[in-house]
């Protein structure tokens, strides 16, 4: 139930077994079914969710009802509406399970308490935020400068599992493309092979 979390933490900081056992007591284990939501747009986001198993996505909905995917989270990833989680304001995103998933949830108070109890966890969180910021910059830059094909190729090279585990229309939304454009891009790439 905590294998991915242990792996994720130990990739970034050194924790003793005792410290990890203490960490576990702060997390809420939660199973969520496919299409169930962890957070609804407009609600206050009270959890930072670690995905032990499964896939989640966060998305916002525009005035026409179109869903704009902000993030996917696979096994070993974190997902939340960071602004709402840290400030207590209303969330911009809905967080939904794409597959049946097993999560470990950390509330804002539990996160603070855990960082006090295990200082290495604070360093782990800082490194995560640092990496998330770098990834966000890269994504914004890609959205502004890359072609549809470049965006798709970069995504599939970085995260090959996206193709097999995520429906195409969600991938298109994540890349800021229409499903038709993504389909055309995929066809062009396959014809060249």
């Amino acid at each position, binding site marked *: 139930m905590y294998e991915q979390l242990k792996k994720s933490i130990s990739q970034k900081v050194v924790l003793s077994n005792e410290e990890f056992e203490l960490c576990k*007591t702060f997390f809420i284990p939660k*199973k969520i079914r496919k299409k169930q939501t962890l957070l609804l747009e407009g609600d206050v986001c*009270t959890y930072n969710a670690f995905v032990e198993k499964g896939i989640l996505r966060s998305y916002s909905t525009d005035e026409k009802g179109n869903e704009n995917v902000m993030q996917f989270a696979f096994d070993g990833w974190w997902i939340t509406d960071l602004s709402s989680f840290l400030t207590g304001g209303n969330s911009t995103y809905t967080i939904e399970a794409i597959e049946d998933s097993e999560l470990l949830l950390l509330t804002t108070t539990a996160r603070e308490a855990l960082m006090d109890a295990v200082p290495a966890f604070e360093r782990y969180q800082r490194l995560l935020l640092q990496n998330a910021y770098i990834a966000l910059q890269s994504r914004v830059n890609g959205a502004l400068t890359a072609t549809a094909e470049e965006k798709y190729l970069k995504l599939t090279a970085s995260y090959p599992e996206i193709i097999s585990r995520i429906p195409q229309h969600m991938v298109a939304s994540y890349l800021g493309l229409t499903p038709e454009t993504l389909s055309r891009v995929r066809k062009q790439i396959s014809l060249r092979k």
Partner: protein
Amino acid sequence: MQNIKTIAVIGASDKRNFAVLNELAARYQLLLFDKNEQALSEIHQALLSKNRYAYLEKMPCATNASWEADLIILSGFCINDATVVQTIKEVATAKIIVIMENDDEFTKSINHQVSFDLIFPHSKIIEVINVNSDDQAEKEFLLEGHDSYALDTVSNIFERIGFNTFVSQIN
């Protein structure tokens, strides 16, 4: 306030808690478990007949019901069933566990609180004691526990579904 959407009811067939489950069913997703499958089906049907659009599910396993839930209610025989209690222990970490105490002996309830704190050291135990006799229409409950946040959450849920609560924080 903790975000409670899904509640697991372990030992759902205890009819003394029907009024509470009936009100909860109108506002929350309930995952019902009981070792007695027939009694579970009867309660499930009875709740459905009064709450046609409610999300009520009979669960074959106490662990999965508790794993999916944001809050766990232990009632009936399950309170004293060590096997059931052990199966939900790991998935109950950091969650609120509500013990529906239907025994009138106040001192016994305090002993329960102590033993459940030992069994679930990383959960927030709230004991709920019905302070009315069964034939009274208005239900009032005494809530006991250590964690003020959990006490507020459970009190809020009970008040929201139309019951009066008295909160007692144990030091």
